[in-house]
């Protein structure tokens, strides 16, 4: 069975190029697919939808260039939803590379919906190093103005209109984290202590073990990778990066399934052949 041998020895580089071609198809051909929301995405959407008017939301973003594919759609959809509803929010990060990415999305959404900095959103930028999140999250949950002190523009928290009455984590109706990893500190030190609701936006790879937090009601919703972003974008009726990626991903996944089947069939055939030769 020469074909089995050949299939087992396909040059990796051919596979890489084939994959690149497969995921590029939606660039050239308009593809439409249904993207129904899963319960975890619906949970996230409803959590934002149910925030009482005027109540603050905290967004913590840690995604950057390396995770645009997974997280940009999530950030785009959540910010669009908040801006459309006119829900005031604060945003901060524990990754110094993140602000340029989320600010691009926020500024575009603010222009679309006529929102004003300081009243509709406040950016605190890079406030806590990733390694000190446990300390930082606890401190800001206990005394938000005392820990944050001032926003990225240097305005003290007490002088920012949207934050005049903020004291601690109970003044936030919802916390949404968007990044590669789930930020467990918000469960350990905020949700369990102050009862503030938490939504995770994370890379698909990290979702498997995070589902248990939905079951235990420690989080109210979760956006899983580009899929979660795409589903949320469809819910807010503004398709963007998430939908783009998920379309391309479908072609990539189809190719991988075909390759896995072909590789296994050829490996079995090869094994049978070698057993036959030994007999």
């Amino acid at each position: 069975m020469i074909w089995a041998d050949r299939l087992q020895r396909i040059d990796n580089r051919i596979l890489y190029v084939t994959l690149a071609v497969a995921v590029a198809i939606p660039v050239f051909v308009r593809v439409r697919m249904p993207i129904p929301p899963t319960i975890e995405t619906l949970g996230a959407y409803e959590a934002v939808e149910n925030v009482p008017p005027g109540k603050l939301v905290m967004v913590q973003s840690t995604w950057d260039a390396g995770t645009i594919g997974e997280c940009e759609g999530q950030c785009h959809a959540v910010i669009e939803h908040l801006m459309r509803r006119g829900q005031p929010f604060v945003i901060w990060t524990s990754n110094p590379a993140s602000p340029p990415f989320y600010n691009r999305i926020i500024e575009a959404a603010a222009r679309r919906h006529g929102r004003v900095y300081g009243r509709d959103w406040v950016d605190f930028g890079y406030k806590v190093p990733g390694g000190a999140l446990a300390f930082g999250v606890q401190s800001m949950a206990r005394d938000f103005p005392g820990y944050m002190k001032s926003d990225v523009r240097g305005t003290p928290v007490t002088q920012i209109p949207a934050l005049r009455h903020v004291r601690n984590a109970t003044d936030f109706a919802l916390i949404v984290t968007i990044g590669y990893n789930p930020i467990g500190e918000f469960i350990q030190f905020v949700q369990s202590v102050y009862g503030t609701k938490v939504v995770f936006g994370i890379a698909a790879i990290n979702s498997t073990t995070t589902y248990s937090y939905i079951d235990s009601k420690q989080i109210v919703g979760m956006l899983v990778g580009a899929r979660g972003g795409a589903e949320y974008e469809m819910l807010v009726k503004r398709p963007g990066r998430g939908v783009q990626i998920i379309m391309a991903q479908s072609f990539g996944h189809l190719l991988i399934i075909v390759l896995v089947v072909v590789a296994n069939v050829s490996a079995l055939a090869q094994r049978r052949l070698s057993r036959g030769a030994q007999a």
Partner: protein
Amino acid sequence: MEHATWTGATLLLVLCGAILARIVAARRGRPVFIRRIAGLDHLDDALGRATEMGKPIVFSPGFGDLGQMSTYAGLACLEYAVRRAARFGLRVIVPVAGATMFPVAQDVARDACIAEGKPELYDANDVLYLSGDQNAFAAAVTGIMEREKVGAAFYFGSYGFESLLLAETGQRIGAIQVAATDSFFQVPFFIAACDYTIFGEELYAASAYISREPTMLGSLSGQDFGKVVVAALLIAGIVAATVAQFNGASSGAFNALVGLLGR
């Protein structure tokens, strides 16, 4: 909860008490049994194969820093690997991701060579501080593996997404690879690309087994007691929940148990 509750404090005391008691017992010389982890045999095999091929090996003690227990487990295994390698006269390249880890890894490698009576085998340039950035670290380690054509690669410690980049490169260059990590998300990549993978708490068991360090042995044994306590609690809860389902919501045992743990 902001402060410890009675239930939480009692649970902590029982679990920590068991660990401390076992550590004290182990330190006093009481034998502590830890079963051998199968992956350790593969570590020895990989070193032997690298010696036959006459190629250097890479041993990465993880992407974690000195605050993570997995790093210490990785360092204990690093010492074991360097000692074994020194016996065979093998060159060991140790890429390090954390600045604080760098001198510690250097010390471990140097001491291991000295302990084997071969201090000349230690080369300070083979313990490399690369970067604390995952992408940069992965790019650097894969580059080294390609250039040095390493015969075996060992990944012992905590890892992030760089795991697959490292392991796939190792597989492509034909290195024998053994991974041991408590980073559960990375285990599948190591399983797919390495010859053997030690996962979860097995990493700690492996390092305790190798080092025979009483603190590590006692701690592992105490944790096993903790697992029995948690398993008993879970079984009691499951039974109470089942009884509650049959009796309707009025089951006192279930409500009492949940109330106790939630208090």
